[in-house]
Protein backbone atom coordinates (compact mmCIF):
# COMPACT_ATOMS: atom_id res chain seq x y z
CA UNK A 1 0.00 0.00 0.00
CA UNK A 2 1.22 3.48 -0.78
CA UNK A 3 2.40 5.33 2.29
CA UNK A 4 1.52 9.02 2.70
CA UNK A 5 4.16 11.13 0.91
CA UNK A 6 4.82 13.23 3.97
CA UNK A 7 5.65 10.20 6.13
CA UNK A 8 9.24 10.55 7.33
CA UNK A 9 11.23 7.74 8.85
CA UNK A 10 12.71 8.93 12.17
CA UNK A 11 14.37 5.65 13.16
CA UNK A 12 14.01 2.05 11.95
CA UNK A 13 10.77 1.70 13.88
CA UNK A 14 9.46 5.26 14.33
CA UNK A 15 7.70 7.22 11.55
CA UNK A 16 6.40 10.77 11.60
CA UNK A 17 3.76 12.83 9.82
CA UNK A 18 4.48 16.55 10.43
CA UNK A 19 1.90 18.96 11.83
CA UNK A 20 1.74 20.52 8.35
CA UNK A 21 0.23 17.29 6.97
CA UNK A 22 -3.34 18.35 7.74
CA UNK A 23 -5.06 21.59 8.65
CA UNK A 24 -5.63 21.93 12.37
CA UNK A 25 -2.93 19.52 13.54
CA UNK A 26 -1.43 20.86 16.75
CA UNK A 27 1.39 18.32 17.00
CA UNK A 28 3.02 15.79 14.64
CA UNK A 29 1.77 12.19 14.51
CA UNK A 30 4.16 9.34 15.20
CA UNK A 31 3.60 5.78 14.11
CA UNK A 32 5.60 2.90 15.53
CA UNK A 33 6.39 -0.19 13.46
CA UNK A 34 8.75 -1.90 11.08
CA UNK A 35 8.66 -1.06 7.39
CA UNK A 36 6.41 -4.10 6.82
CA UNK A 37 3.96 -3.22 9.61
CA UNK A 38 3.67 0.39 8.57
CA UNK A 39 2.95 -0.63 4.97
CA UNK A 40 0.30 -3.10 6.17
CA UNK A 41 -1.62 -0.49 8.15
CA UNK A 42 -4.92 0.56 6.60
CA UNK A 43 -5.21 4.10 5.24
CA UNK A 44 -7.61 4.90 8.07
CA UNK A 45 -4.75 4.74 10.58
CA UNK A 46 -2.95 7.71 8.98
CA UNK A 47 -6.18 9.64 8.68
CA UNK A 48 -7.30 8.91 12.23
CA UNK A 49 -3.98 9.49 13.99
CA UNK A 50 -3.65 12.88 12.29
CA UNK A 51 -7.24 13.73 13.28
CA UNK A 52 -6.28 12.97 16.88
CA UNK A 53 -3.40 15.46 16.50
CA UNK A 54 -6.01 18.24 16.11
CA UNK A 55 -7.56 17.75 19.56
CA UNK A 56 -7.20 20.64 22.03
CA UNK A 57 -4.48 20.22 24.63
CA UNK A 58 -2.64 17.34 22.96
CA UNK A 59 1.00 17.23 24.03
CA UNK A 60 4.05 16.33 21.95
CA UNK A 61 2.63 13.75 19.48
CA UNK A 62 -0.46 11.80 18.47
CA UNK A 63 0.85 8.23 18.62
CA UNK A 64 -0.01 4.90 17.05
CA UNK A 65 1.48 1.62 18.24
CA UNK A 66 2.82 -1.14 15.91
CA UNK A 67 -0.45 -3.11 16.13
CA UNK A 68 -2.45 -0.08 14.95
CA UNK A 69 -5.48 -0.48 12.74
CA UNK A 70 -8.81 1.16 11.90
CA UNK A 71 -10.78 2.38 14.93
CA UNK A 72 -13.45 5.00 15.65
CA UNK A 73 -12.09 8.50 16.06
CA UNK A 74 -8.78 7.23 17.36
CA UNK A 75 -7.15 4.27 15.61
CA UNK A 76 -6.83 1.09 17.64
CA UNK A 77 -3.29 1.39 19.01
CA UNK A 78 -3.81 5.13 19.49
CA UNK A 79 -2.19 7.05 22.35
CA UNK A 80 -2.68 10.74 23.12
CA UNK A 81 -1.63 12.69 26.21
CA UNK A 82 -3.66 15.79 26.96
CA UNK A 83 -2.54 18.67 29.18
CA UNK A 84 -4.97 18.10 32.04
CA UNK A 85 -4.54 21.57 33.52
CA UNK A 86 -4.06 23.46 30.28
CA UNK A 87 -7.27 22.99 28.30
CA UNK A 88 -6.77 19.36 27.34
CA UNK A 89 -9.84 17.32 26.43
CA UNK A 90 -11.16 13.90 27.36
CA UNK A 91 -12.60 11.84 24.48
CA UNK A 92 -14.52 8.54 24.70
CA UNK A 93 -13.18 7.80 21.21
CA UNK A 94 -9.68 7.75 22.68
CA UNK A 95 -10.65 5.07 25.16
CA UNK A 96 -12.96 2.83 23.14
CA UNK A 97 -16.46 1.52 23.69
CA UNK A 98 -15.12 -1.39 25.72
CA UNK A 99 -13.71 0.63 28.59
CA UNK A 100 -10.96 -1.30 30.42
CA UNK A 101 -10.87 -4.04 27.92
CA UNK A 102 -7.74 -5.69 29.28
CA UNK A 103 -5.65 -8.74 29.96
CA UNK A 104 -5.11 -10.93 32.99
CA UNK A 105 -2.28 -13.45 33.24
CA UNK A 106 -2.23 -16.23 35.82
CA UNK A 107 0.49 -18.75 36.51
CA UNK A 108 0.14 -22.25 37.92
CA UNK A 109 2.49 -24.82 39.43
CA UNK A 110 1.29 -27.27 36.78
CA UNK A 111 3.44 -28.39 33.87
CA UNK A 112 2.62 -29.42 30.32
CA UNK A 113 2.74 -33.09 31.38
CA UNK A 114 0.14 -32.44 34.10
CA UNK A 115 -2.23 -30.58 31.78
CA UNK A 116 -1.93 -32.24 28.39
CA UNK A 117 -3.81 -35.46 29.36
CA UNK A 118 -6.65 -33.44 30.92
CA UNK A 119 -6.77 -30.60 28.46
CA UNK A 120 -10.16 -31.48 26.96
CA UNK A 121 -11.76 -31.80 30.38
CA UNK A 122 -10.24 -28.51 31.55
CA UNK A 123 -11.35 -26.59 28.47
CA UNK A 124 -14.86 -28.09 28.53
CA UNK A 125 -15.27 -27.22 32.22
CA UNK A 126 -13.89 -23.71 31.76
CA UNK A 127 -16.27 -23.24 28.81
CA UNK A 128 -19.17 -24.16 31.10
CA UNK A 129 -17.96 -22.02 34.03
CA UNK A 130 -17.10 -18.81 32.18
CA UNK A 131 -20.08 -17.79 30.04
CA UNK A 132 -19.23 -16.45 26.60
CA UNK A 133 -21.15 -15.22 23.58
CA UNK A 134 -23.97 -12.84 22.72
CA UNK A 135 -25.54 -11.11 25.74
CA UNK A 136 -24.25 -13.80 28.13
CA UNK A 137 -24.95 -13.46 31.85
CA UNK A 138 -22.79 -14.39 34.82
CA UNK A 139 -23.40 -16.59 37.87
CA UNK A 140 -23.21 -13.65 40.27
CA UNK A 141 -26.74 -12.44 40.98
CA UNK A 142 -26.64 -8.86 42.20
CA UNK A 143 -29.24 -6.26 43.01
CA UNK A 144 -28.82 -2.94 41.24
CA UNK A 145 -27.68 -1.44 44.55
CA UNK A 146 -24.99 -4.10 44.95
CA UNK A 147 -23.90 -3.49 41.37
CA UNK A 148 -23.42 0.19 42.22
CA UNK A 149 -21.07 -0.88 45.01
CA UNK A 150 -19.15 -3.13 42.57
CA UNK A 151 -18.60 -0.33 40.08
CA UNK A 152 -17.24 1.95 42.78
CA UNK A 153 -15.12 -0.72 44.47
CA UNK A 154 -14.03 -2.93 41.59
CA UNK A 155 -12.15 -6.16 42.27
CA UNK A 156 -11.85 -5.17 45.93
CA UNK A 157 -15.58 -5.84 46.26
CA UNK A 158 -15.04 -9.36 44.87
CA UNK A 159 -12.18 -10.22 47.22
CA UNK A 160 -14.11 -8.88 50.22
CA UNK A 161 -16.99 -11.15 49.25
CA UNK A 162 -14.84 -14.25 49.00
CA UNK A 163 -14.07 -14.27 45.27
CA UNK A 164 -10.31 -14.02 45.40
CA UNK A 165 -7.22 -13.39 47.48
CA UNK A 166 -5.69 -10.16 48.74
CA UNK A 167 -2.56 -10.75 46.65
CA UNK A 168 -4.75 -10.69 43.51
CA UNK A 169 -5.45 -7.03 44.19
CA UNK A 170 -1.81 -6.10 44.70
CA UNK A 171 -1.11 -7.51 41.25
CA UNK A 172 -3.93 -5.68 39.47
CA UNK A 173 -3.52 -2.22 37.96
CA UNK A 174 -4.87 0.38 40.42
CA UNK A 175 -5.12 -2.49 42.95
CA UNK A 176 -8.34 -3.46 41.18
CA UNK A 177 -10.14 -0.30 42.31
CA UNK A 178 -9.70 2.92 40.40
CA UNK A 179 -10.32 5.76 42.84
CA UNK A 180 -12.82 8.48 41.98
CA UNK A 181 -15.51 6.25 40.45
CA UNK A 182 -18.96 7.75 40.99
CA UNK A 183 -21.99 5.54 40.31
CA UNK A 184 -24.30 8.57 40.25
CA UNK A 185 -22.67 9.56 36.95
CA UNK A 186 -23.80 6.46 35.04
CA UNK A 187 -27.21 6.03 33.44
CA UNK A 188 -29.86 3.50 34.45
CA UNK A 189 -29.56 2.04 30.95
CA UNK A 190 -25.87 1.36 31.53
CA UNK A 191 -26.71 -0.45 34.76
CA UNK A 192 -29.49 -2.40 32.99
CA UNK A 193 -27.00 -3.59 30.38
CA UNK A 194 -24.29 -4.64 32.81
CA UNK A 195 -25.55 -5.70 36.19
CA UNK A 196 -26.02 -9.36 35.26
CA UNK A 197 -22.85 -9.65 33.14
CA UNK A 198 -20.09 -9.86 35.77
CA UNK A 199 -17.97 -12.96 35.23
CA UNK A 200 -18.57 -13.22 31.47
CA UNK A 201 -16.14 -13.06 28.57
CA UNK A 202 -18.28 -11.49 25.86
CA UNK A 203 -17.48 -12.26 22.24
CA UNK A 204 -15.45 -10.99 19.26
CA UNK A 205 -11.77 -11.18 20.11
CA UNK A 206 -12.35 -11.99 23.77
CA UNK A 207 -11.07 -15.31 24.98
CA UNK A 208 -9.61 -17.39 27.80
CA UNK A 209 -6.59 -19.52 27.00
CA UNK A 210 -4.45 -22.21 28.60
CA UNK A 211 -0.88 -21.68 27.44
CA UNK A 212 2.55 -23.23 27.93
CA UNK A 213 6.05 -21.81 28.28
CA UNK A 214 8.47 -23.56 25.90
CA UNK A 215 12.21 -23.32 26.34
CA UNK A 216 12.78 -21.89 22.86
CA UNK A 217 10.21 -19.16 23.58
CA UNK A 218 11.96 -17.69 26.59
CA UNK A 219 13.30 -14.35 25.41
CA UNK A 220 15.05 -13.28 28.63
CA UNK A 221 16.07 -16.04 31.03
CA UNK A 222 16.64 -13.83 34.06
CA UNK A 223 13.38 -11.97 33.71
CA UNK A 224 11.45 -15.19 33.05
CA UNK A 225 12.94 -16.62 36.22
CA UNK A 226 11.86 -13.57 38.21
CA UNK A 227 8.29 -14.32 37.11
CA UNK A 228 8.75 -18.04 37.89
CA UNK A 229 8.18 -18.91 34.24
CA UNK A 230 10.31 -21.94 33.45
CA UNK A 231 10.02 -24.36 30.51
CA UNK A 232 6.90 -26.53 30.62
CA UNK A 233 5.03 -24.15 32.94
CA UNK A 234 1.29 -23.71 32.36
CA UNK A 235 -0.31 -20.26 32.48
CA UNK A 236 -3.86 -19.00 31.89
CA UNK A 237 -4.47 -15.74 30.04
CA UNK A 238 -7.74 -14.00 29.38
CA UNK A 239 -8.99 -10.96 27.52
CA UNK A 240 -12.28 -9.19 28.24
CA UNK A 241 -13.73 -5.88 29.35
CA UNK A 242 -16.62 -4.05 30.95
CA UNK A 243 -19.30 -5.71 28.80
CA UNK A 244 -22.59 -3.95 28.03
CA UNK A 245 -22.12 -1.61 30.98
CA UNK A 246 -18.95 0.02 29.66
CA UNK A 247 -20.30 0.12 26.11
CA UNK A 248 -23.34 2.09 27.30
CA UNK A 249 -21.25 4.50 29.40
CA UNK A 250 -19.17 5.29 26.30
CA UNK A 251 -22.27 5.63 24.10
CA UNK A 252 -24.04 7.93 26.61
CA UNK A 253 -21.14 10.34 26.96
CA UNK A 254 -20.27 10.33 23.27
CA UNK A 255 -23.77 11.66 22.63
CA UNK A 256 -23.61 14.16 25.47
CA UNK A 257 -20.27 15.51 24.22
CA UNK A 258 -21.66 15.87 20.69
CA UNK A 259 -24.38 18.11 22.11
CA UNK A 260 -22.14 20.46 24.12
CA UNK A 261 -18.83 20.36 22.31
CA UNK A 262 -19.43 23.05 19.73
CA UNK A 263 -22.21 25.06 21.29
CA UNK A 264 -20.71 25.32 24.78
CA UNK A 265 -16.98 24.77 24.33
CA UNK A 266 -16.43 25.88 20.71
CA UNK A 267 -14.46 22.76 19.86
CA UNK A 268 -14.60 21.63 16.23
CA UNK A 269 -13.57 18.11 15.35
CA UNK A 270 -13.01 16.21 12.11
CA UNK A 271 -14.94 13.06 13.01
CA UNK A 272 -18.02 12.61 15.23
CA UNK A 273 -16.29 9.71 16.97
CA UNK A 274 -13.73 12.22 18.27
CA UNK A 275 -16.42 13.95 20.35
CA UNK A 276 -14.77 15.40 23.44
CA UNK A 277 -15.09 17.93 26.25
CA UNK A 278 -12.51 19.87 28.24
CA UNK A 279 -11.20 17.61 30.99
CA UNK A 280 -11.97 20.22 33.63
CA UNK A 281 -15.54 20.91 32.37
CA UNK A 282 -18.53 19.45 34.29
CA UNK A 283 -19.24 17.06 31.38
CA UNK A 284 -15.58 16.01 31.18
CA UNK A 285 -15.39 15.40 34.92
CA UNK A 286 -18.64 13.41 34.88
CA UNK A 287 -17.39 11.18 32.08
CA UNK A 288 -14.08 10.63 33.90
CA UNK A 289 -16.00 9.51 37.03
CA UNK A 290 -18.37 7.29 34.97
CA UNK A 291 -15.51 5.81 32.96
CA UNK A 292 -13.84 4.85 36.23
CA UNK A 293 -17.00 2.89 37.15
CA UNK A 294 -16.50 0.92 33.93
CA UNK A 295 -12.82 0.41 34.78
CA UNK A 296 -13.93 -1.06 38.10
CA UNK A 297 -16.66 -3.20 36.52
CA UNK A 298 -14.02 -4.70 34.28
CA UNK A 299 -11.53 -5.37 37.10
CA UNK A 300 -14.40 -7.09 38.95
CA UNK A 301 -15.31 -9.05 35.82
CA UNK A 302 -11.78 -10.41 35.42
CA UNK A 303 -11.56 -11.10 39.16
CA UNK A 304 -14.73 -13.23 39.02
CA UNK A 305 -13.36 -15.10 36.02
CA UNK A 306 -10.14 -15.80 37.93
CA UNK A 307 -12.29 -17.17 40.74
CA UNK A 308 -14.04 -19.52 38.29
CA UNK A 309 -10.71 -20.62 36.81
CA UNK A 310 -9.48 -21.51 40.28
CA UNK A 311 -12.67 -23.48 40.96
CA UNK A 312 -12.35 -25.45 37.71
CA UNK A 313 -8.67 -26.35 38.15
CA UNK A 314 -9.34 -27.25 41.75
CA UNK A 315 -12.18 -29.59 40.74
CA UNK A 316 -10.24 -31.24 37.93
CA UNK A 317 -7.09 -31.85 40.03
CA UNK A 318 -8.87 -32.47 43.34
CA UNK A 319 -6.69 -29.93 45.13
CA UNK A 320 -7.25 -26.41 46.42
CA UNK A 321 -6.17 -23.58 44.10
CA UNK A 322 -3.51 -22.54 46.66
CA UNK A 323 -1.85 -25.95 46.29
CA UNK A 324 -1.95 -25.69 42.51
CA UNK A 325 -0.23 -22.29 42.76
CA UNK A 326 -2.88 -20.49 40.72
CA UNK A 327 -1.61 -16.98 41.26
CA UNK A 328 -1.80 -13.71 39.43
CA UNK A 329 1.08 -12.38 37.40
CA UNK A 330 -0.69 -9.15 36.49
CA UNK A 331 -3.88 -7.52 35.22
CA UNK A 332 -3.71 -4.53 32.92
CA UNK A 333 -6.21 -2.30 31.07
CA UNK A 334 -5.60 -1.45 27.42
CA UNK A 335 -8.65 0.82 26.82
CA UNK A 336 -8.46 3.67 29.27
CA UNK A 337 -7.55 7.27 30.06
CA UNK A 338 -5.46 7.93 33.15
CA UNK A 339 -4.22 10.99 34.92
CA UNK A 340 -0.44 10.59 35.14
CA UNK A 341 2.64 12.71 35.86
CA UNK A 342 5.12 12.82 33.01
CA UNK A 343 8.16 14.94 32.23
CA UNK A 344 7.84 16.63 28.86
CA UNK A 345 10.82 18.61 27.57
CA UNK A 346 12.18 18.83 31.11
CA UNK A 347 8.89 20.02 32.59
CA UNK A 348 6.75 17.92 34.95
CA UNK A 349 3.16 17.86 33.69
CA UNK A 350 -0.15 16.38 34.73
CA UNK A 351 -1.37 14.53 31.63
CA UNK A 352 -4.55 12.67 30.80
CA UNK A 353 -3.12 9.79 28.79
CA UNK A 354 -5.64 8.13 26.46
CA UNK A 355 -4.70 4.59 25.50
CA UNK A 356 -7.03 2.84 23.09
CA UNK A 357 -5.77 -0.60 22.25
CA UNK A 358 -2.48 0.35 23.84
CA UNK A 359 -0.98 -0.80 27.13
CA UNK A 360 0.63 1.26 29.83
CA UNK A 361 4.22 0.07 30.24
CA UNK A 362 5.85 1.90 33.15
CA UNK A 363 9.60 1.53 33.39
CA UNK A 364 11.64 0.21 36.32
CA UNK A 365 11.44 2.17 39.55
CA UNK A 366 8.13 3.89 38.90
CA UNK A 367 5.95 4.11 42.00
CA UNK A 368 2.74 2.68 40.47
CA UNK A 369 4.35 -0.72 39.81
CA UNK A 370 3.71 -3.47 42.42
CA UNK A 371 6.70 -3.77 44.78
CA UNK A 372 7.76 -7.19 43.52
CA UNK A 373 8.14 -5.90 39.93
CA UNK A 374 9.45 -2.43 40.66
CA UNK A 375 13.07 -3.14 39.74
CA UNK A 376 12.25 -4.89 36.46
CA UNK A 377 9.41 -2.75 35.06
CA UNK A 378 5.67 -3.15 34.83
CA UNK A 379 4.41 -6.42 33.31
CA UNK A 380 2.66 -6.00 29.94
CA UNK A 381 0.40 -8.77 28.64
CA UNK A 382 0.01 -9.00 24.87
CA UNK A 383 -2.69 -11.29 23.53
CA UNK A 384 -2.04 -12.87 20.16
CA UNK A 385 -4.39 -14.81 17.92
CA UNK A 386 -5.64 -18.19 19.17
CA UNK A 387 -3.43 -20.02 16.67
CA UNK A 388 -0.12 -18.29 17.16
CA UNK A 389 0.87 -17.17 20.64
CA UNK A 390 0.96 -14.37 23.19
CA UNK A 391 3.63 -12.48 25.12
CA UNK A 392 4.67 -11.22 28.50
CA UNK A 393 6.75 -8.07 28.26
CA UNK A 394 7.97 -5.49 30.75
CA UNK A 395 8.10 -1.71 30.47
CA UNK A 396 11.61 -0.35 29.87
CA UNK A 397 13.12 2.97 30.96
CA UNK A 398 13.12 4.21 27.38
CA UNK A 399 9.32 4.30 27.22
CA UNK A 400 9.14 8.05 27.90
CA UNK A 401 8.70 8.88 24.20
CA UNK A 402 5.30 7.14 24.16
CA UNK A 403 4.29 8.23 27.66
CA UNK A 404 5.20 4.66 28.61
CA UNK A 405 2.76 3.01 26.21
CA UNK A 406 3.21 -0.10 24.12
CA UNK A 407 1.07 -2.38 21.91
CA UNK A 408 -1.84 -4.46 23.20
CA UNK A 409 -2.13 -7.37 20.79
CA UNK A 410 -1.65 -8.57 17.26
CA UNK A 411 -3.93 -6.17 15.44
CA UNK A 412 -6.16 -7.40 12.67
CA UNK A 413 -5.18 -7.30 9.06
CA UNK A 414 -8.34 -8.80 7.53
CA UNK A 415 -11.97 -7.79 8.13
CA UNK A 416 -14.35 -10.13 9.94
CA UNK A 417 -16.65 -10.25 6.92
CA UNK A 418 -13.75 -11.37 4.72
CA UNK A 419 -12.38 -13.85 7.27
CA UNK A 420 -15.70 -15.66 7.65
CA UNK A 421 -15.68 -16.29 3.90
CA UNK A 422 -12.15 -17.64 4.01
CA UNK A 423 -12.44 -20.06 6.96
CA UNK A 424 -15.13 -22.35 8.36
CA UNK A 425 -15.38 -22.56 12.16
CA UNK A 426 -15.81 -26.33 12.45
CA UNK A 427 -12.96 -27.07 10.02
CA UNK A 428 -10.71 -24.63 11.83
CA UNK A 429 -11.47 -26.31 15.16
CA UNK A 430 -10.57 -29.74 13.73
CA UNK A 431 -7.43 -28.38 12.11
CA UNK A 432 -6.29 -26.72 15.34
CA UNK A 433 -6.94 -29.92 17.27
CA UNK A 434 -4.47 -31.72 14.99
CA UNK A 435 -1.92 -29.09 15.96
CA UNK A 436 -2.55 -29.72 19.67
CA UNK A 437 -4.83 -26.73 20.35
CA UNK A 438 -8.30 -27.56 21.68
CA UNK A 439 -10.82 -24.76 21.20
CA UNK A 440 -14.45 -24.37 22.28
CA UNK A 441 -16.59 -21.54 21.00
CA UNK A 442 -20.01 -19.96 21.48
CA UNK A 443 -20.07 -19.10 17.78
CA UNK A 444 -18.71 -21.06 14.81
CA UNK A 445 -18.58 -18.10 12.49
CA UNK A 446 -17.09 -16.05 15.33
CA UNK A 447 -14.33 -18.66 15.50
CA UNK A 448 -13.68 -18.35 11.77
CA UNK A 449 -13.49 -14.57 12.12
CA UNK A 450 -10.73 -15.02 14.71
CA UNK A 451 -8.51 -17.27 12.57
CA UNK A 452 -4.79 -16.62 13.03
CA UNK A 453 -4.48 -15.61 9.38
CA UNK A 454 -6.76 -12.60 9.97
CA UNK A 455 -4.16 -11.11 12.31
CA UNK A 456 -0.78 -9.52 11.90
CA UNK A 457 2.33 -11.42 12.96
CA UNK A 458 2.62 -10.98 16.72
CA UNK A 459 6.38 -11.60 16.71
CA UNK A 460 6.79 -8.69 14.32
CA UNK A 461 4.64 -6.41 16.52
CA UNK A 462 6.48 -7.24 19.71
CA UNK A 463 9.85 -7.14 17.92
CA UNK A 464 9.05 -3.65 16.64
CA UNK A 465 8.07 -2.49 20.14
CA UNK A 466 11.33 -3.83 21.57
CA UNK A 467 13.42 -2.32 18.78
CA UNK A 468 11.72 1.03 19.39
CA UNK A 469 12.62 0.79 23.08
CA UNK A 470 9.02 0.84 24.34
CA UNK A 471 8.88 -2.77 25.62
CA UNK A 472 11.16 -5.62 26.58
CA UNK A 473 10.26 -9.22 25.77
CA UNK A 474 10.20 -11.79 28.56
CA UNK A 475 8.39 -14.92 27.34
CA UNK A 476 6.24 -16.00 24.43
CA UNK A 477 3.40 -18.36 25.36
CA UNK A 478 2.06 -21.09 23.05
CA UNK A 479 -1.70 -21.85 23.07
CA UNK A 480 -2.98 -25.28 24.17
CA UNK A 481 -6.65 -24.73 24.96
CA UNK A 482 -8.93 -21.81 24.20
CA UNK A 483 -12.48 -20.68 24.85
CA UNK A 484 -13.83 -18.07 22.48
CA UNK A 485 -16.80 -15.83 22.91
Amino acid at each position, binding site marked *: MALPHALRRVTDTVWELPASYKDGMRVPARIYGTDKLVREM*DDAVYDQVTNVATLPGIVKYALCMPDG*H*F*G*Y*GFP*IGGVAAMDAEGGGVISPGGIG*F*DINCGMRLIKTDLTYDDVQPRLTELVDKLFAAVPA*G*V*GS*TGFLKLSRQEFRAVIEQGAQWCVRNGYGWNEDLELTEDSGRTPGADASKVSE*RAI*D*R*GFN*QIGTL*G*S*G*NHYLEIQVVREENICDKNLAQTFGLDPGRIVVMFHCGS*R*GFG*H*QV*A*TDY*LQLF*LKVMESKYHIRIL*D*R*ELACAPFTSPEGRDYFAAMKCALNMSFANRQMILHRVREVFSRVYGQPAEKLGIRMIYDIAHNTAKLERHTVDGKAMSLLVHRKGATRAFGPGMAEIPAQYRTIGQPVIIGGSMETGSYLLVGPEGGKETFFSTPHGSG*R*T*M*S*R*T*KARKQWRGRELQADMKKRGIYVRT*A*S*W*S*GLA*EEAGGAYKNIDEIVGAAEAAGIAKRVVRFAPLGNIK*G
Partner: protein
Amino acid sequence: MGYHYLEDVATADIAFEATGETVEQVFVAAAEATMNVMVEELRSIEGRVEKRIELENRDLDMLLFDLLQELVYYKDAQQLLLRVREIAIAERDGTYLLSARAAGEKLDPERHEQRADVKAVTLHQFTLQKTDALWKALVILDI
Protein backbone atom coordinates in the same frame (compact mmCIF):
# COMPACT_ATOMS: atom_id res chain seq x y z
CA MET B 1 -34.99 -3.49 0.48
CA GLY B 2 -32.22 -5.44 2.10
CA TYR B 3 -28.72 -5.30 3.48
CA HIS B 4 -25.25 -6.58 2.84
CA TYR B 5 -22.04 -6.63 4.83
CA LEU B 6 -19.02 -4.73 3.55
CA GLU B 7 -15.63 -6.42 3.44
CA ASP B 8 -13.14 -3.59 3.41
CA VAL B 9 -14.54 -0.89 5.64
CA ALA B 10 -13.91 -1.96 9.23
CA THR B 11 -11.07 -4.35 9.98
CA ALA B 12 -11.99 -5.44 13.48
CA ASP B 13 -15.72 -4.76 13.31
CA ILE B 14 -18.69 -5.13 11.00
CA ALA B 15 -19.95 -2.63 8.45
CA PHE B 16 -23.19 -2.96 6.51
CA GLU B 17 -25.21 -1.12 3.93
CA ALA B 18 -28.98 -1.25 4.22
CA THR B 19 -31.41 -0.07 1.55
CA GLY B 20 -35.13 0.55 1.24
CA GLU B 21 -37.63 2.27 -1.03
CA THR B 22 -39.06 4.12 1.95
CA VAL B 23 -37.51 5.47 5.10
CA GLU B 24 -39.40 2.83 7.10
CA GLN B 25 -37.98 0.07 4.92
CA VAL B 26 -34.39 1.20 5.36
CA PHE B 27 -34.88 1.36 9.15
CA VAL B 28 -36.23 -2.21 9.20
CA ALA B 29 -33.40 -3.42 6.93
CA ALA B 30 -30.79 -1.83 9.21
CA ALA B 31 -32.45 -3.41 12.26
CA GLU B 32 -32.36 -6.83 10.58
CA ALA B 33 -28.70 -6.35 9.59
CA THR B 34 -27.82 -5.50 13.20
CA MET B 35 -29.58 -8.57 14.59
CA ASN B 36 -28.12 -10.79 11.88
CA VAL B 37 -24.62 -9.88 13.13
CA MET B 38 -25.54 -11.55 16.43
CA VAL B 39 -27.65 -14.47 15.18
CA GLU B 40 -26.97 -16.49 12.03
CA GLU B 41 -30.61 -17.25 11.17
CA LEU B 42 -33.10 -14.49 11.88
CA ARG B 43 -35.90 -16.98 11.13
CA SER B 44 -34.87 -18.87 14.28
CA ILE B 45 -36.16 -15.96 16.41
CA GLU B 46 -39.77 -16.59 17.35
CA GLY B 47 -42.08 -13.73 18.25
CA ARG B 48 -42.93 -14.76 21.79
CA VAL B 49 -42.45 -11.35 23.43
CA GLU B 50 -43.54 -7.98 22.12
CA LYS B 51 -41.99 -4.59 22.81
CA ARG B 52 -43.23 -1.20 21.76
CA ILE B 53 -40.47 1.19 20.83
CA GLU B 54 -41.19 4.93 20.81
CA LEU B 55 -38.34 7.26 19.96
CA GLU B 56 -37.84 10.84 18.88
CA ASN B 57 -34.92 12.80 17.58
CA ARG B 58 -34.38 16.08 15.76
CA ASP B 59 -32.17 14.30 13.22
CA LEU B 60 -33.46 11.46 11.09
CA ASP B 61 -30.09 9.67 10.97
CA MET B 62 -29.81 9.82 14.75
CA LEU B 63 -33.30 8.36 15.01
CA LEU B 64 -31.97 5.30 13.16
CA PHE B 65 -28.96 5.27 15.50
CA ASP B 66 -31.38 5.31 18.48
CA LEU B 67 -33.42 2.42 17.08
CA LEU B 68 -30.34 0.23 16.59
CA GLN B 69 -29.09 1.12 20.08
CA GLU B 70 -32.48 0.05 21.44
CA LEU B 71 -32.01 -3.43 19.95
CA VAL B 72 -28.51 -3.69 21.45
CA TYR B 73 -29.92 -2.54 24.80
CA TYR B 74 -32.63 -5.24 24.94
CA LYS B 75 -30.05 -7.89 23.97
CA ASP B 76 -27.96 -7.08 27.08
CA ALA B 77 -30.58 -5.90 29.57
CA GLN B 78 -33.13 -8.68 28.95
CA GLN B 79 -31.21 -11.09 26.67
CA LEU B 80 -33.96 -10.39 24.13
CA LEU B 81 -33.45 -10.88 20.42
CA LEU B 82 -35.95 -8.58 18.70
CA ARG B 83 -37.11 -8.12 15.13
CA VAL B 84 -38.94 -4.98 14.08
CA ARG B 85 -42.39 -6.00 12.77
CA GLU B 86 -44.16 -2.70 12.22
CA ILE B 87 -42.77 0.77 12.06
CA ALA B 88 -44.06 4.28 11.40
CA ILE B 89 -41.92 7.41 11.13
CA ALA B 90 -43.39 10.89 11.10
CA GLU B 91 -42.14 14.45 11.37
CA ARG B 92 -43.74 16.99 13.66
CA ASP B 93 -42.42 20.52 14.34
CA GLY B 94 -38.90 19.64 13.25
CA THR B 95 -38.74 16.44 15.31
CA TYR B 96 -38.84 12.94 13.89
CA LEU B 97 -41.01 10.45 15.74
CA LEU B 98 -40.67 6.68 15.51
CA SER B 99 -43.23 4.20 16.68
CA ALA B 100 -42.46 0.52 16.25
CA ARG B 101 -43.63 -2.89 17.34
CA ALA B 102 -40.85 -5.41 17.79
CA ALA B 103 -41.23 -9.08 18.58
CA GLY B 104 -38.78 -11.73 19.60
CA GLU B 105 -37.63 -13.98 22.40
CA LYS B 106 -34.86 -14.65 24.90
CA LEU B 107 -31.61 -15.86 23.42
CA ASP B 108 -31.43 -19.64 23.61
CA PRO B 109 -27.99 -20.97 22.59
CA GLU B 110 -29.61 -24.29 21.65
CA ARG B 111 -31.86 -22.75 19.01
CA HIS B 112 -30.13 -19.52 18.06
CA GLU B 113 -26.82 -20.03 16.38
CA GLN B 114 -24.71 -17.11 17.54
CA ARG B 115 -22.35 -14.99 15.57
CA ALA B 116 -20.80 -11.96 17.35
CA ASP B 117 -21.99 -9.69 20.14
CA VAL B 118 -22.55 -6.06 19.15
CA LYS B 119 -21.00 -3.72 21.69
CA ALA B 120 -22.17 -0.47 20.18
CA VAL B 121 -23.50 1.31 17.14
CA THR B 122 -20.80 3.72 16.06
CA LEU B 123 -21.05 7.08 14.38
CA HIS B 124 -18.01 6.37 12.23
CA GLN B 125 -19.06 7.03 8.61
CA PHE B 126 -22.64 6.64 9.83
CA THR B 127 -24.91 7.90 7.05
CA LEU B 128 -28.54 7.81 6.09
CA GLN B 129 -29.40 9.32 2.72
CA LYS B 130 -31.87 9.25 -0.13
CA THR B 131 -30.43 8.75 -3.59
CA ASP B 132 -32.89 8.77 -6.52
CA ALA B 133 -35.64 6.41 -5.42
CA LEU B 134 -33.64 4.59 -2.77
CA TRP B 135 -32.85 5.18 0.88
CA LYS B 136 -29.41 3.97 1.95
CA ALA B 137 -27.80 3.61 5.36
CA LEU B 138 -24.15 2.85 6.12
CA VAL B 139 -23.53 1.60 9.63
CA ILE B 140 -20.46 0.26 11.44
CA LEU B 141 -21.07 -1.85 14.52
CA ASP B 142 -18.43 -2.22 17.21
CA ILE B 143 -17.76 -5.91 17.87
